[in-house]
Each structure stands twice: as structure tokens, then as C-alpha cells.
């Protein structure tokens, strides 16, 4: 942990959420403090991405129970853009394409909006150009990229790199990265992980949603959570990720079932 006893940033309590009437999240508790890196792992369909989207306020999901405090404030009282301005960032699993809107225009508008909300000065196009070129270097990206339409015709790896560029531009308090590692080859993964590592400070935090342990070779988590059936069923340190990589998820699930239903399953297991 980089910031022992850091301030609480995110407090999730008993969170339940549905999409199209189907309950996906069935009671999540999670605390994230400043300076921490959390990894949320789990099999497909366990609710990891839903959790990420609910944190960001995606309108397709309905929160049915629980609470989320972000820096002590009720997150549900904020619409998605206000959450972003307050410093909550979601790196998308599937970034959308926006034809005709250049990356530079999009990044600058996002940057200036968020800066404005923080009471800081906005940058004019020339100042922003200097600013963004520094960020591009961090991710080993070609400046020609700025003139392309947002995500249009990007390879999977370029899209993910673009998410991290936005992260670097907006400098949020809490970054939730939803499967940022998927679709990246090993070189791209290294570049992206390196970028993320350089963005870590004592007063921000990261939540990495991932299937695989390999990202965690490059970004070392303080906590690893296993999600299954819309709940966090096990929490451990970084060594848990290795164990999951070696043994899969079944043993955690069985262990959890044994814990929650001791009489019925203990004998048969």
C-alpha cells in the first residue's frame, strides 16, 4: 500500500442493481481508500462490468438497494457527468466510436469541462496542444492520433490506449478500468500498464476489473476481490491473483458456498 491509512474515497454498502428487471448485483460491499489499487476478478457474467457501470451512473442500470459514498458524498445524487467532474473515471471495456469528432476536440472539451468544475483554468487550443502532447508521450502515441475521429477505425489496442490517454488527461481521483487489458498484445499491455503506474499518486486510487492475472504482473494490486453471482465472495492480497490463475475460480466459489450454506454443501463437497 502506497498510502497507509489513506482517506476513504469510495464506500459501497449493500449495493443491488438490475438491468431490464434482472438483478445483476446482489449486495456488494467495497471500500477504496486513497493510494490503493484494487483488482476485481471473476468469471464471465459475474457482474464485474455492471458494477463498474453502476459506479459511473449508466442509465440502463437501476440501483435497487444500498448506498455509495464518494469522498463522503452520496454518489446517487449525481448524474453521470457530475460524477465524472467530481473525479470518477471509467475506462470502458468497449469504447464507442464517434465519427467526425476529432480526438483533440473531444479531449479538450472533456478536459476543460472537468477543469472548470474544479475551479481551474481552461486551456485554449494552443495551450491544450502542448499539454496533450506530453500525455501522448506517456503512452507512446503518435500525435497524428489527435486528428483522427474518436475511436473510429481504431484497433482494439488503440481504443484501450485512448482510454488511458483520457485518464491521463482528466487525472481523476478514482479510476475504474474495465478490462483495459483485453485485446492488448503484450507490448501494448506493458505501455498501458506503465502509463497507469505513472499516474498513481498518494491521493488517487484505481479499481481494475479484469479476467486475467497478467495485467496484475504490471500493475500490482493491494487487494484482489473475486466476484461471482453479483457479490464479492473473497478478498485477498496480490497473491490471490496468482492462486486464481493457477487454480481457476471454482474453488473460491465452492469455498464461498460452503461458507454460506454449511450444512447442505459441506458433506457433499
Amino acid at each position, binding site marked *: 500500500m502506497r498510502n497507509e491509512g489513506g482517506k476513504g474515497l469510495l464506500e459501497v454498502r449493500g449495493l443491488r442493481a438490475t438491468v431490464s428487471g434482472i438483478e445483476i448485483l446482489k449486495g456488494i460491499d467495497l471500500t477504496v481508500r486513497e493510494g490503493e489499487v484494487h483488482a476485481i476478478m471473476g468469471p464471465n457474467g459475474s457482474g464485474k462490468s455492471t458494477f463498474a457501470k453502476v459506479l459511473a*451512473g449508466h442509465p440502463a442500470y437501476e440501483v435497487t438497494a444500498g448506498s455509495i459514498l464518494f469522498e463522503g458524498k452520496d454518489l446517487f445524487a449525481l448524474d453521470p457527468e457530475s460524477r*465524472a467532474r467530481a473525479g470518477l473515471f471509467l475506462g470502458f471495456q468497449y469504447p464507442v466510436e*464517434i465519427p*467526425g469528432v476529432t480526438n483533440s476536440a473531444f479531449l479538450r472539451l472533456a478536459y476543460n469541462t472537468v477543469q472548470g468544475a474544479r475551479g481551474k483554468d481552461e486551456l485554449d487550443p494552443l495551450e491544450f496542444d502542448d499539454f496533450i502532447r506530453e500525455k501522448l508521450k506517456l503512452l507512446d502515441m503518435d500525435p497524428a492520433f489527435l486528428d483522427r475521429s474518436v475511436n473510429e477505425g481504431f484497433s482494439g489496442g488503440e481504443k484501450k490506449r485512448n482510454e488511458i490517454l483520457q485518464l491521463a488527461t482528466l487525472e481523476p481521483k478514482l479510476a475504474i478500468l474495465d478490462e483495459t487489458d483485453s485485446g492488448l498484445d503484450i507490448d501494448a499491455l506493458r505501455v498501458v500498464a506503465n502509463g497507469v503506474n505513472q499516474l498513481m499518486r498518494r491521493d488517487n486510487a484505481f479499481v481494475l476489473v479484469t479476467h486475467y492475472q497478467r495485467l496484475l504482473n504490471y500493475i500490482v494490486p493491494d487487494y484482489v476481490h473475486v466476484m461471482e453471482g453479483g457479490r464479492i465472495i473473497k478478498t485477498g492480497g496480490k497473491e490471490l491473483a496468482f492462486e486464481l490463475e493457477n487454480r481457476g475460480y471454482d474453488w473460491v466459489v465452492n469455498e464461498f458456498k460452503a461458507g454460506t450454506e454449511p450444512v447442505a454443501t459441506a458433506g457433499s463437497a
Partner: protein
Amino acid sequence: MSSVLEQLVNKPYEHGFRTDIEAETAPKGLNEDTIRLISAKKGEPEWLLEFRLKAYRHWLTMVEPRWPNVTYAKIDFQDIIYYSAPKPKKKMSMDEVDPELLRTFEKLGVPMNERAALAGVAVDVIFDSVSVATTYKEKLAKVGIIFCSISEAVRDHPELVRKYLGSVVPPTDNFYAALNSAVFTDGSFCFIPKGVKCPMELSTYFRINTEESGQFERTLIVAEEGASVSYLEGCTAPKFDTNQLHAAVVELVTLDNADIKYSTVQNWYAGDEKGVGGIYNFVTKRGLCKGVNSKISWTQVETGSAITWKYPSCVLLGDNSIGEFYSVALTNHYQQADTGTKMIHIGKNTRSTIISKGISAGHSNNSYRGLVKIGAKAAGARNYSQCDSMLIGSNCSANTFPYIEVQNAAGKVEHEATTSKIGEDQLFYFRQRGIGTEEAVSMIINGFCKQVFQQLPMEFAVEATKLLGLKLEGSVG
């Protein structure tokens, strides 16, 4: 629309001439006497009266087109006043203008009085400064350019008008063109003589604010050999009119090596949110690339009118001539648009480009309809068409009706079409980066329309961008 605006627009004329105006207005209805009256009032030569009567007689044999993908109640053509003398409106100072209207102008970034002069735009009559118009007129006259109302042109340059009027859109062309030919009362005339590049953009910017050119506007622009002009029609400011039916005709002619760029921003009153009221905009616009290597380029941003029915077209007669059509048509609430173009390739190696962007929101209906025809002698002709539709919400519709006729095997026609929807995920992406919904929609729309906006003169492009945002306010989220 706000009742304040309506009151302002429909404010009765307050000072003087009242009786005169009564006397200058023809009775309702259309017959040969009405046409003779119009012609006599305007002191027209005999040939023009004949032109009108011929058109009228033909019109009687025609039926209203029913093929456009729009619906409206039957128009009673005998319930329209076809002639009233131009009403000089009261000149207002800015303090007298309704604040609501000013707010709209401000949102659009239109400085009302100075805009035209600042933009270097010559307008044939300016809102409240005749002197500026005069200055421009002198400058234009120096290079031999004629830019005046069509009535003045008939009086001062009858030989030119006679030569070109109806040469592109014959009086018998279609129902509304025939009607216009019979009863048009005014419009603009522009003549660029041989070898002259017009030194400024010509515009009708505020003309309609000072003088009603009526429902049946007639525009004629001629560019002689090697001449060049960029012409702007309309403005982004909302325009209101008590006349529901508007049937204009615009004719463009380019001779050898000449080019005309014609840009329109149309923001006539579109009716209210429930689809009550609004202008029927039934327009015939056509350009004739008569000479070799000539070029006609149409750019339109159509955001107003309850119904828009127009197909700015190019007849590519001269070898190597070029036709272009760039269009953004936006419909919201209960607006209907059936718009597109016709590219008629007759000469050899003629080329045309069609870029059409349709945006539908609310309960509106937006259709692209276009014809690309490669004639038997048009060897080497090429066309590229791209028709993109964007839907906002789930109660609107978008249609594309491309017609392609190729009679020469050496011609090449390409057509691409896409339909997209501003989706929840797209908006959420913006919002997650701190950008609010309205701003996100505006950015997406402008990205979608970029290819067309790039064709607009700079001033217009900035305004058009704002205009689209304004028209879509509140339609998402």
C-alpha cells in the same frame, strides 16, 4: 413558438399608407385577371406577361405532386392572395426589438445590424442601413456585376432576363414551378459578366425583413464565361411568415469555365412542437452547367419549415462540367422533409458529388430522394453519392430513395448509405468524460455534418453549427 414572437412578427403595420396598401392588394384567388394585374402593377413588358399566362394555362392542366413522402391537407389555391404591393416595414432601432427575439439571435451569434457589413457580405437591401448596400452596389457595378431584385432586372436589363428566365426551369416543369412562373412577384437577379470573379459573397441576408418578396420568390443567377460567384441565401435567424405556402424557383446558369456556389441556410417557421402551423416550402432549384468545364455547387442546411420539398439539381450539359450537392436536413417534432438532388449527366466526363446528411428527431420524417442519370452521350461520367441518416429518439423516421439511371456503359456511379442512431452508450461515453448531454449531442451532430459544413462560407458554418444545437435543444435525454 412563443406568443411573444408571433405577436412581434404579426404586428400590424402601424404607420401610414394603410389605405394605399389595401388598394394595392389583389383579391383572393387566381385567374388570368390576377396575373394581368400583377404584370401591370409591376409595369412588365408584354413578353413577361405572356410567359406568366403560358405558365398559368399549363398549370391548370397539372395536378399537385403526390409522390413526395410527406402528408398535408389539400391546399386551396383560390384562398391565397397572389399580389400585394411590397410593404415597407417600419425601421426599428434595437431597443424596440422584442427581447425574446434578441435572445434567439444572441444564441445564434447573429449581431443583427452590423453582421452583414462585418462579414463582408453584400446584401441587396440591408436591415437598417441602406448606405452599406449602396456602397457594395457601387463596388459590384465597378466590375460589371449586376445584383438587384428581379423586378429591377426586368426593368433595367430586360434582354438578360428574357434570355435566361425559364431556360433552366421551364414554366411547364412541375406544378409549383408553373405556379411560380405565373405569379412570382419578386426575388433576386445576379449577373456576373465574362471573366469576372465576384469580389465578395453575395447575400439576400436581410432582404425579407425589409420587404416581403412574397411566397413566390424567383431567383436567377448567370455566370458568363470564366465568371465566378458565391451566393448565400437565407440566414440562421428564424423567419416567420403568415403565408403558409412558399413555392420559389431558383435558376442558375454557368457558361464555359464559370462557377456558381450557392449556399442556403433555411430556417423558416417549422410549426410548434405539436406540428401545428409552419411553412410549406415547395421549391424548385436547378442549375445548368451550360458551358464546358463549368461548375455548380449547392450547399444547403435545411432546418426550418413544416414541410420541405426541394431537390437542388444540376444539369451537366457542358463537357467536363461538375455538379455538387452538399446537404444537411434536420427535422424535429412533426416536421417533414423530402429533399435531395438530381444530377443529370449529359456531357462527356461530367462529374458529380452528392453528400447528404439527414437528421431526424422527435416525431419527424426525413427522406433523401435523389436521381443520378448518366445520359447516352455522357462517356466517362462519374458520380459519387453518400447518404447518411441519423436518428435521435425512436419516434422519428429516415428514408433514402436513390434513383440511378445509366445509359452509358462507360459511366461510373457509386452510392453509399448509412443509418445511425445517437445511442445511450454514445451519450454515456461523453457524460462519463464530464460532457453534458446537450453538448454531447451538438458535438455528435456537428461531427456527422462536418463534410457539409466544410463547404459553407466560414461565417455561415459557425452559425449553422449553433443553429443545429438550438433546433435540437431538449430533444435528447
